[in-house]
């Protein structure tokens, strides 16, 4: 009996560590949001940033300078929050994919979803053809193609029998196919079009607006609580299809639902940002190393790590060559590649 109490206390400590980690991440994110808002040509202090945010939230109650409030609310806050939302969504999508496919390298990028979005964007840029008009031509195409890739992977997996290996192989096949189409479009496109396509693949949060942030937030709000609600099923699937089935999880249906949600999350983010690599791959890994694999805490914590990483990377992208802004995709790759290599080496050692 006494032994059991000690055992359970150990688990309770683990749960506390997780809560603390999530609390720490939230605090760090709130601080980083304040710092990120100060970055730019108009000088603002962190205190002024917070005051301006609060003044916008509760008009008339706080005495913040109008100029600061305008700068924060019209120019900076949506970009900062977009980085948070995009980082969160990409990390959660990566976390789900790695879990259900039981593959540490699975992410929206290695599964061809990002490459399909690039093809969609390229078709819009080079051929001017697309499902939507105006500003939404590129966005609409990227979104549609990302979902098409997800459906293609699903279709192949369905035909061959849904298993994690099939999905990963199908994803890689899809990635090569869409990369080839993009290369072809780049080959036939003009110099300006080529530049636009290449710039799209860099990934950037420059074009964020409040409505775009609204769309992404809505999708996050609809999907992430559902994923956390089904955390036990994700835990079981991470142990293997057969184990999950014997624990009462409807394996095939769950795999499809989780894959589609992860794809939707990815599609709705990268259609606005272009290719932002490595967040979906790296954030879940970092989190898992610190707090382990229980999806009940892994999902929200990975999301917060992703948000911190992308906001951090965007802040670096904006300050390194200020007033020039580097595409954030380049910065995340600089952060991500060394980590990727570290993971690879670590796995070999293990």
């Amino acid at each position, binding site marked *: 009996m006494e032994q059991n*109490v000690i055992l359970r206390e150990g688990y309770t400590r683990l749960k506390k560590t997780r809560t603390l980690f999530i609390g720490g991440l939230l605090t760090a994110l709130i601080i980083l949001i304040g710092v990120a808002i100060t970055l730019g040509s108009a000088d603002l202090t962190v205190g002024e940033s917070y005051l301006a945010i609060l003044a916008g939230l509760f008009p008339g109650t706080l005495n913040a300078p109008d100029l600061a409030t305008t700068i924060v609310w019209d120019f900076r806050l949506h970009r900062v929050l977009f980085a948070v939302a995009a980082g969160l969504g990409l990390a959660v999508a990566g976390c789900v994919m790695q879990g259900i496919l039981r593959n540490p390298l699975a992410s929206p990028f290695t599964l061809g979803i990002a490459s399909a979005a690039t093809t969609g964007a390229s078709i819009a840029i080079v051929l001017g053809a697309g499902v939507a008009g105006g500003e939404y031509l590129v966005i609409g195409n990227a979104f549609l193609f990302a979902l098409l890739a997800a459906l293609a992977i699903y279709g192949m997996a369905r035909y061959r029998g849904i298993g994690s290996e099939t999905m990963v192989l199908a994803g890689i096949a899809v990635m090569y196919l869409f990369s080839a189409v993009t290369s072809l479009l780049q080959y036939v496109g003009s110099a300006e079009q080529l530049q636009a396509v290449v710039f799209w693949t860099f990934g950037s949060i420059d074009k964020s607006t409040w409505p775009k942030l609204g769309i992404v937030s809505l999708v996050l709000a609809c999907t992430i609580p559902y994923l956390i609600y089904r955390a036990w099923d994700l835990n079981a699937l991470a*142990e293997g299809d*057969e184990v999950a*089935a*014997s*624990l009462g*999880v409807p394996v095939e249906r769950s795999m499809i639902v989780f894959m589609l949600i992860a794809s939707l999350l990815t599609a709705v983010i990268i259609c606005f940002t272009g290719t932002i690599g490595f967040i979906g791959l790296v954030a879940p890994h970092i989190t898992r190393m610190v707090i*382990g*694999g229980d999806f009940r805490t892994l999902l929200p914590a990975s999301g917060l790590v992703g948000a911190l990483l992308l906001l951090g990377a965007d802040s670096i992208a904006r300050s390194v060559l200020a007033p020039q802004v580097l595409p954030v995709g380049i910065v995340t790759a600089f952060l991500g590649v060394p980590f990727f290599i570290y993971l690879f080496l670590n796995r070999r050692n293990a």
Partner: protein
Amino acid sequence: MARLSVEDLSFAYRDREVLRGITFSVAAGEVLGLVGPNGCGKTTLIRCIDGMLTPRSGRVLLQGQELRTMHRREVARAMAYVPQSVGNQTSSTVFETVLMGRRPYLNWTVSPADEEKVAEALDLLDLRDLALRKVSELSGGERQRVMIARALVQETGVVLLDEPTSNLDVCHQMGVMEVLRGLASERDLAVVIALHDLNLAAIYCHRLMVLSAGTVYGYGAPEEALTEEMLRTVYGIQAVVKRDLSAPYMVPVRPGHPAGEV
């Protein structure tokens, strides 16, 4: 009534028939060993019983209730599955991996009673000191005990195991089988184990079912099922079966070298 009954079960992958007319039953407290050469259909049979594969015909009954008519959660409360001791990529701790066995009973939160059950199972399988270690860091034998502990907290009447002793040395093989045989009688479990090692199966199983090319070749106590003729017909090998020990023991003979010669 038998805990688990399989009646005239057949299964085919597209046009290739893998199992034909399989019938057997397992009572509470009984350990049944599924043996047979590679590709004879052991794993397929386990997967059909577990509901991962849908049989072409025949029935699987759990406590007299047909598996097909039961809800997944109901099945998960009646039958547990222990996979082969292969690499575990997840970074979960031993405690959490075992806790997952409570999934058929859990909503989202974990109650102190669930934690208590996990602690008991860890204690029973001598995993106390490893509770907060990651499963991926454990040895094959320890990992296998974790999987069995998870099946135990699932509190089912039937436990299926797919080659639980592959990748284990003889000491750990015996350790795992000893635990299973003990649990079967203490907790009145019906245990079905797919095994490669015929001698191990003969020592620890109450009955053996020999599968050959998807059909039942023999079914009975180890003394009846493990025969020289069976080894010749099913495995295509010459062997001597020694019967002077507590369980029959087979010794393979090199082709062209009569028994007893080295």
